[in-house]
């Protein structure tokens, strides 16, 4: 004996439950950090609640038998569900980093302009906090187009800086331990931008931060990039940034290895731009943090 059910409701309940499970899993296992900025936590928990309520309200509808329902268009919901199951966001392993590389560092070097990474950083520095520059970064050579843009922003920025100059370095004084600025992940983004924007003030200061090792094609033998991935909003805008380091033990470092780097900031000319560089570098083994990325905190 059988009984006709409401297939549509069944499919919807299934989809909702699957979405809820994946979201809860992502939230609890902290995998969500690979996808979106922490400011979405509240929204995602709220969504989970609502979706659960949807599913509950649908359960009573399953009994209402339906005929000739179109469930084919729900196939589309299988795409994200299957994708999430087949390609889970993996923790810190080489694969994950390769992807990140594809998106940023590697892609830049493929563009036959290996300088881009640092280029961009320079631009980034001059407009501290401005995402705009990031979007420019990967379209380097847009000088003619973005000239107006850049200059406007530089002007604005200059004004800002004029006001702030007095205490831009003081901001980080509180993090000093034994004469070394210890830059933790939560202030890394701000600090990084400030260093690029106000390099003069930081020259000669010692600093320490957690980073990963990246190679750049046009670097010298003893140079590497100590950098992190920055997220503004979600994985779609992940970009890697770093500071040039010079070290004698460069050859012992593997790409994407986590290190704590301590060094003295100095100026360095890189493809026409003045960028910060760490010299006198001490490297200790670092532990991969729970949250791999650096998040911009704008509000």
């Amino acid at each position: 004996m059988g009984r006709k059910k409401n297939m549509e409701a069944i499919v919807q309940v299934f989809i909702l439950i699957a979405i809820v499970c994946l979201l809860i899993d992502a939230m609890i296992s902290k995998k969500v950090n690979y996808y979106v900025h922490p400011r979405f936590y509240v929204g995602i928990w709220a969504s989970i609640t609502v979706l659960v309520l949807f599913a509950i309200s649908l359960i009573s509808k399953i009994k209402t038998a339906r005929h000739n329902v179109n469930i084919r268009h729900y196939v589309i919901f299988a795409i994200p569900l299957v994708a999430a199951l087949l390609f889970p966001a993996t923790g810190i392993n080489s694969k994950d980093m390769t992807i990140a590389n594809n998106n940023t560092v590697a892609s830049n070097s493929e563009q036959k302009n290996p300088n881009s990474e640092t280029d961009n950083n320079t631009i980034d520095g001059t407009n501290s906090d401005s995402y705009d520059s990031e979007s420019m970064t990967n379209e380097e050579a847009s000088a003619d187009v973005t000239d107006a843009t850049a200059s406007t922003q530089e002007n604005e920025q200059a004004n800002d800086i004029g006001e702030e100059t007095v205490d831009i370095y003081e901001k980080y004084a509180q993090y000093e331990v034994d004469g070394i600025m210890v830059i933790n992940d939560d202030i890394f983004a701000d600090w990084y931008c400030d260093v690029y924007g106000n390099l003069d003030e930081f020259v000669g200061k010692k600093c320490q931060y957690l980073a990963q090792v990246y190679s750049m094609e046009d670097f010298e033998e003893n140079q590497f990039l100590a950098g992190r991935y920055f997220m503004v909003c979600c994985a779609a805008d992940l970009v890697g940034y770093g500071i040039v380091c010079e070290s004698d033990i460069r050859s012992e470092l593997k790409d994407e290895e986590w290190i704590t780097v301590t060094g003295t900031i100095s100026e360095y000319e890189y493809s026409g731009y003045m960028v910060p560089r760490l010299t006198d570098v001490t490297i200790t083994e670092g532990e991969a943090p729970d949250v791999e990325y650096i998040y911009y905190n704008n509000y």
Partner: protein
Amino acid sequence: MATYIDIITGFLESGKTTFIKELLQSNYLEEFDKIILVICEEGFSDYEEEKPGEIHIKTLILENESDLNDDLFIQIAEEYTPDLVLVEYNGTWSISKILGVRIPFEYKFRNVVFVSEAGNFRNQLSNMATVMQPHILNSDMVIFNRFEKLHQGMQKKLTRDIKNINPRTRVTFINEFEADKILKERFMTFNNLEKTSMNFKMNLKVGIFLAFYFSLLLICEFPNIYNYTQSIVTVFLSILMQAIPFILLGAFISAGIQIFASTGWIMKQISKGSWYSFLIASVAGFFMPICDCGMVPIISGLLKKETPLPQTITFWLSSSAVSPIVIISMLYAFPEQPYLAVVRVITGLMIGIMVGVILKLINLETKDVTKENQRVQNIGKDVLELKYEGVKGKIEAVFAGAKVEFFRVAEYVIIGALISAVLQTIMPQTMKSFIGNNIVVQFIVMIAAAMLMSTCSTSNAFIGRSFSNNFSTVPILAFIVMGPMLDLKNMVMLSEILKKRFLLFLATLVIIESTIVFGALSFFL
């Protein structure tokens, strides 16, 4: 062998009995030996001596809805072992009642046929929508009879009414019973069987092909393919994850407005037709924070009420720029450039007002551009089966409406997110730098994307955002602002009421103006 159950439903005097008689006399049922007729009301003709000869027909009459219980079909199976059960169903009973009763395993609901008298249909639909809609919603085909007196074009309208409720059902006006294609398809068992097995084979083929393709890719094409796919997936999921809260928020507000708010005041303002009304029309969208696909029915409704065209179009174009949800989503998507939210509002308003003013200047009026005799129905969402009444019922309705809205919108967002994730991950580097060099090319690409990607205004900020590695700000803004205005899906929806030529003109106008607006903007941003 399976026993089929065909349900013939419709109101009293709709012609069900006549239809069943014709069916019995036709050659459609030749292959059945034993037919049971279950009649749920007393029709105006009875079936005495209808079918002579070899076929055994037994008639059962159910007088009360309570007779329709779990034992019915089991008893029928035990007593008569028929190979076809024809049910003449009472149109005022709930259709899910019969569909939900227990049936033996070898029994199968084959056809649900809704029969209606063409002349009365619209009247009945507006008076008894909640009774009638479930029947149409569950039907495989809708049959109109006594349509001979209808004037030309009415048939098309009736068909559209039906398709509005259930796009999958077939509509037929029967001229020659035995020659009707749709009837033949639905009632000849062999056709039916062949079709399903063919479908299955097709699906199997597609499945095998896909599996083959993917394994090929995985094994030999690139060793890097896994990484590539994973990076696409990560971007894809991240776009979805941040969009979900906003889709839900939009769904609730949209459903809430449709149930609680009246659009009367806004409509009155827009209908005034003065120059001042452009301003009101352009900001009115703020009070209707619905995503653009939800706006389309409102626009159709306004045009139907013959509101002045320029103001209505201004309202439509600006609505997706001034909506509070859109503004919030912009702030979330571009946290480091909150001014972009303001820019979006301003550009959206400018384009909307400019288009409106131009339409006013060239003196286009609503009746010039709307299709004639349109009857816009927006009942799809009323098919919410509600338990409660009063305030509780309204809350329940908002909740149920939001659920419908969520599933509808999520589909488009998934497609949009997938396209943008694939594009931004595998877009060849050369292409990237080519696009990157030329802001005009970027602009053109983004307009094309705006038309084709069908992203919802409430979440397209995130999709636009995800392009930011490859495109600069102004083209991305163009994509976000113009997305809802040029969206192909919206155009298709609007073409139900507006003439295609006008829509084409409108799209061109929007593109030209946005070129001017964003061209100017690129000097400032």
